[in-house]
């Protein structure tokens, strides 16, 4: 049974945001005043829910009987041969219902929507995984669902658009700006400020204004809570390192958070390096960006010298975002976590390597973490154990793979 400590961290140590929603210098709320009462309402309702045994019971029940938790841990020795012999363990979020870790957050927030007394849910999506997960939870709970998705993403993730429609959601293609995730978020905020009385904005990552970074993290936190227990059961000790892909940062914070209080466990986040730093076409927000405000939160941002957002690039729609959750910004600056870039090419090599050596087709997002783990293994040596969050499965990426590998 999920406990309040599992959900909210149980005092892992000074890592909850302050009353303004700040993680150190990051986070906060930079939104139109009109939205503040709604954010306050979400924060208050969530604060009550996270210690309410009835809410925890319902969330736990859904995670077990609907999402398919706990997800298993898989040892991948054949894949790890390319990592200098280090042991690599995959946390199999790809095996959850809907095929990615996003279902955890979505079920939590959909329950919260009911608690808020709201009947309509809106969400943004990049790769479509959060949109599919949201549409799924809304179908399950009888909520009206509208998904905003950039036109470019609608094209490259057509299969997910069809899935969302089949699940009864309305998909609104967004034709503004770069026509990707950031513009879908802008459009969702516009909807929210207009329809806030009836609507919950089911935000998909650990970015955005307070309380989203904290709340989404808590709902994703189960990944690390389970994995920590499973690694110890399997190996008798904690892993030496944890690796995860970072776009907005929810799967990464989900697997990192239970390990923050373990100083011997290194935390490594892998951002989308796209065509490489020199090309300027990447999504290296933490490693190449600067501090600014985007989508309601102070964090690292890809921006020019006057604060205009620079369009990101990644072969993976889920990592193609010029911002990142404020807690990652804080973990970076405090030195507790380290962030690196993985190029499209490196990610695609790991994508195919895992498929051929282990019979697992990962999401391209997750393939960034796999590529990172291969490098990490070579650095840490054969005695090391590396936990990788395999955040989603690659079915949705077959179109991209067919093109990339000429399949």
């Amino acid at each position, binding site marked *: 049974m999920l406990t309040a400590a599992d959900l909210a961290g149980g005092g892992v140590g000074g890592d909850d945001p302050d009353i303004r929603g700040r993680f150190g210098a990051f986070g906060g709320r930079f939104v139109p005043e009109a939205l503040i009462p709604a954010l306050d309402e979400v924060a208050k309702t969530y604060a009550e829910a996270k210690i309410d045994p009835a809410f925890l019971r319902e969330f736990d029940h859904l995670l077990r009987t609907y999402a398919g938790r706990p997800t298993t841990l898989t040892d991948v020795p054949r894949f790890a041969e390319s990592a200098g012999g280090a042991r690599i363990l995959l946390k199999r979020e790809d095996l959850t219902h809907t095929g990615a870790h996003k279902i955890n957050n979505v079920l939590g927030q959909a329950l919260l929507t009911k608690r808020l007394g709201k009947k309509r849910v809106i969400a943004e999506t990049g790769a479509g995984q959060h949109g599919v997960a949201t549409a799924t939870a809304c179908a399950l709970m009888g909520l009206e669902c509208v998904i905003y998705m950039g036109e470019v993403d609608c094209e490259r993730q057509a299969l997910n658009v069809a899935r969302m429609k089949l699940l009864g959601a309305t998909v609104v293609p967004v034709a503004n700006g770069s026509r990707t995730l950031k513009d879908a978020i802008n459009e969702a905020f516009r909807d929210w400020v207009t329809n806030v*009385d009836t609507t919950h904005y089911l935000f998909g990552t650990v970015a955005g204004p307070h309380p989203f970074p904290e709340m989404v993290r808590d709902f994703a936190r189960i990944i690390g809570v389970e994995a920590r227990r499973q690694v110890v059961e399997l190996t008798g000790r904690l892993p030496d390192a944890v690796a995860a892909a970072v776009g907005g940062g929810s799967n990464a914070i989900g697997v990192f958070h239970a390990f923050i209080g373990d100083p011997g466990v290194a935390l490594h986040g892998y951002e989308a390096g796209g065509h490489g730093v020199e090309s300027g076409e990447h999504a290296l927000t933490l490693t190449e960006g600067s501090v600014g405000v985007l989508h309601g939160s102070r964090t690292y941002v890809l921006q020019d010298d006057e604060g205009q957002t620079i369009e990101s690039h990644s072969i993976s729609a889920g990592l193609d975002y010029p911002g990142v959750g404020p807690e990652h910004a804080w973990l970076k600056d405090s030195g507790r976590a380290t962030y690196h870039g993985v190029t499209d090419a490196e990610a695609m090599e790991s994508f195919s390597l895992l498929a051929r050596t282990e019979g697992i087709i990962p999401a391209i997002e997750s393939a960034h973490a796999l590529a990172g783990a291969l490098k990490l293994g070579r650095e840490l040596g054969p005695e090391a154990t590396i936990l990788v969050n395999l955040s989603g499965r690659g079915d949705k990426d077959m179109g991209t793979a067919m093109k990339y590998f000429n399949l």
Partner: protein
Amino acid sequence: MTTLQTVFEKARADRRAALIGYLPAGFPTKEGAVAAATAMVEAGCDVIEIGLPYSDPLMDGPTIQDAVHRALTNGTRIADVMRTVEGVARSGAAVLVMTYWNPIDRYGAERFARELADAGGAGTITPDLTPEEAGPWCEHSAAAGIDTVFLAAPSSTEDRIKAVVDRCTGFVYAASLMGVTGARKSVSSAAEGLVGRIRPHTGLPVCVGLGVGTGVQAAEVAGYADGVIVGSAFIRRILDAPDEASGLAAVRTLAAELATGVRA
């Protein structure tokens, strides 16, 4: 420089509301924005808000998004915004910059406040800077001698209204409705109620914006507010015009209609 205080004292003496027009810098062109805003002043606007074009305008509707996109495509930068302020200030209106927070944050708050004051600007409106985060900006603005205007919304509680009003100088911006910028068929009934809830907390003028676009609406709002703010309706005139000259004429006509409205 004409200050907001001067504008509202004059309007009060004339027993009318002030007319405030919005236009982004760089739209339709860098020079065109100065010409259009100057025409708006000549036809009756007391205050001009110059929008600072930003890549992610999440509280703007399609009309302003479109205009801002064009301004950014024109290569509009903060130096151009300052030049626009300078040009429009020559017309004798009080000139504000309306901007999302990130461009100021990135540019440097102290530098931005100083340069805006040097350009003859009267202050700023910062719609996504909440009272909790506004402390340093208010200090830099006060040091530079410019006003800070913030927004209250129909959803604002009494506590929030008080927090917003405490940060304001010049006037308080009452957002008439829950939604994004853009002209509407009628002005939201929430506007008058909100102005009424703001009044007990401040002696500052209270101005109403969002969804106002005709002389009739301006007259209605002028019945209970100290200022009427119009943005998208001006932009729409320019977007719909076949060329810059007719756009300018259309803007002038609208400003005159609105100016008659605030005097009704």
